């Protein structure tokens, strides 16, 4: 009882879960927008990485973590347009292009990092995104330490999940985005501009993934390191699939995976291999895809380029 109680009874585990879930939930949300319009987006890892780098760079240069946040998100969005252009205009294979974007992002951020900052790394006085304490909430026992004091981007993430859910499922724009991802030809025959909505979906995906990267570099830390996303873009992809291509589902999956990460930290002292726990997200995703727990069905036209007939 005592060891288990120490681990699971500690609110810090759950606070850490929420923090660990944030850099997964944001790109998963982004992937949801992209894939709902029909573009498979495995480039989240790359979008996150440029988001993380430019977040630090601009924050350090301007001494404003908010400008860093903006720059990081935009960097992710702009990079994602290369995937959008190749996938929509050139009708290229989306997985191959996504992979190329990831490799490009890894290369360019390493190059810029080494060129600009050299062996000393990013300036130690780079500002963090602020941590927010919600007065009333924070005083509540157990719940308070979990929900009442988090990085501001955690709260932004939660807000974005709700907004995304509303946009996708309760607005005309969302209906059209989903229609385009399910059946572009039918959407075309009722006068919907398929390409425009797909660009929008991929761009939103890049913005959100970039924001995920920003959380890593100036949310949790105030520095950049080469390859610091460490595969989170792919775990986010898994979270999106596990969450059935919905914002709320993505958040749920991100929390589950975040919990696994937080748990692996907590268990380190007890002698359970953290590598074992780190496998969990992928194992769960495979289970989700095989349909053992409610089959996860992608948008019907996900990954299929649309070529209008003339």
């Amino acid at each position, binding site marked *: 009882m005592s060891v288990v109680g120490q681990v699971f009874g500690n609110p810090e585990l759950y606070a850490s879960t929420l923090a660990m879930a944030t850099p997964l939930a944001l790109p998963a949300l982004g992937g949801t927008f992209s894939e709902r319009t029909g573009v498979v987006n495995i480039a989240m890892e790359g979008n996150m990485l440029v988001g993380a780098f430019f977040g630090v760079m601009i924050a350090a240069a301007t001494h404003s973590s908010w400008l860093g946040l903006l720059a990081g998100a935009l960097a992710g969005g702009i990079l994602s347009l290369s995937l959008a252009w190749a996938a929509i205009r050139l009708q290229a294979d989306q997985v191959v292009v996504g992979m190329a974007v990831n490799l490009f992002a890894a290369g360019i951020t390493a190059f810029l990092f080494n060129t600009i900052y050299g062996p000393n790394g990013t300036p130690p006085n780079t500002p963090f995104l602020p941590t927010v304490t919600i007065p009333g909430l924070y005083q509540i026992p157990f719940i308070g330490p979990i929900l009442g004091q988090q990085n501001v981007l955690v709260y932004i993430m939660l807000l974005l999940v709700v907004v995304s859910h509303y946009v996708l499922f*309760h*607005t*005309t*724009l*969302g*209906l*059209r985005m*989903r*229609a385009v991802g*399910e*059946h572009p*030809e*039918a*959407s*075309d*025959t*009722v*006068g*919907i501009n398929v390409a425009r909505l797909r660009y929008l979906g991929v761009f939103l995906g890049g913005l959100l993934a970039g924001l995920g990267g920003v959380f890593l570099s100036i949310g949790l830390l105030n520095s950049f390191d080469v390859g610091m996303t460490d595969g989170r873009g792919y775990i986010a992809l898994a979270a999106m699939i596990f969450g059935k291509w919905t914002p709320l589902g993505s958040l749920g999956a991100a929390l589950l995976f975040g919990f696994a990460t937080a748990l692996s930290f907590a268990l380190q002292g007890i002698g359970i291999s953290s590598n074992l726990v780190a496998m969990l997200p992928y194992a769960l995703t495979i289970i989700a895809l095989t349909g053992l727990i409610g089959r996860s069905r992608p*948008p*019907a036209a996900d990954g299929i380029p649309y070529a209008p*007939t*003339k």
Partner: protein
Amino acid sequence: MSTLEIRHLRKAFPGVIANDDVNLLVQSGETHAILGENGAGKSTLIKMISGLYQPDQGEILIDGEARRFDTPRDAIHVGIGVVHQHFMLIPALTVAENVVLGSELSKGRFQRSKTEAAVAEISRSFGLPLDPSARVRDLSVGMQQRIEIVKALYRKVRILILDEPTAVLTPQETRELFVVMRQLKAEGIPIVFISHKLEEVREIADTVTVMRLGKTVQTHPVAGTTSAQLANWMVGRDVVFSDHPPASTGIGDTLLEVDRLTVLDERKVQAVRALTFAVRAGEIYGVAGIDGNGQTELVEAIAGLRPVQSGVIRFQGRSLAKVGVRGRLRAGISYVPQDRQRDGLVLTFTLTENLMLRDLSRPFSRGGFLTRKAARQRAQELLTEFDVRPDNPSALAGSLSGGNQQKVILAREVASRPKLLIAVQPTRGLDVGAIEGIHRQLLRLRDEGNAVLLVSLELEEILALADRIAVMHAGQIITELPRDQADIETIGLAMTGERRAAVTSEEGST
């Protein structure tokens, strides 16, 4: 009250003229049928009217005003509503979402309850009951078609075009559709009804325009026509009988026996109904009929591609019930499918590779390894023999014209010297030279003592080749005649489902 007029419309694709000098006048408030066989150019015409294709020449006039549709949106805008044969619905969305998609009540928030009420109102006022909140993927084909019609009505349709609407429906659903069509007509909405089914055209349409080989050949009030007349216009009366090839010299033993065969189509409707016939060695057995009367299902059942519901297929006296496709090939049954691009060739492979596909054993491989040189040599021989152009074994199948692709398939199938060759529409869309070449090969196969089961929608072809002729209608063989007793009148009439005892001589079909 709107009218649709088409003047001298023409559309050509590389190598084919799909529409040529098409003329049509649909008056306000009438149901106007466009009747024609598959490949007569009906779909191309519809695609031009709906803005999916742009005509090369000619005009489309709505209420006397010439219109140009660059996109489907333009056509929707002037009030043209098309219910495509393949529905343009999104299965994952609800009925109401599908109906309003692209023309939603408002931007911003999707007004679900208001939208559903609006859709329910339209469906009620036109007698098309629908549940607006149901998911499309859970609905039957008939219901989905209804959604398409409601979709057009929601967009204030002025001219409704139904492209082969009954092709996917059960008989009951067809009756319901006709009730709806009569109601729409009563509302004054002109309907263009595309079909190749004579009975349906006669039942529902006021006027009929017949298309053949890309042209409109006749426009006539339905009231003054007979089925036989329609069939003749559709199939083409002015058929010239080219020199009859010599009749079969030696009829041998029965090779293929089909005994009370019943086969279902995709909709689980009986497409072939307790059908019986036999094909003997040394003859070409021709199956005529209007498209969609069970020919496809019959042939696929014999080839082993479609399950048999009841009845028996025997080959050389042995039941094929437990024999798979490969076993049938080994036994000597060859099949030249109708859709050669889809089912017959791998378009991205070379001709040599395609010729090898059927049988990879000698001379194409040894011990699991391909023998490229021998394969190429054999391919070269076949290409020369069958007059394929270009006769280059390394050319990609996809680079050949349709006629030459068909020759490649035929070369592959005939080269294996099958005891029974099943050929469906073997010369469809080919030029005269290619047709002659293929006919020669079929006759040669027959004269070598093999059997050919020839299914064709072109009566001319059947009459030119077959030793015995069967006419299929509604899944049954309605008439079977030796060639010397067959004439176009008799067969044309039988194709419409009318069977005159005087003409059908039972003893004629030994």
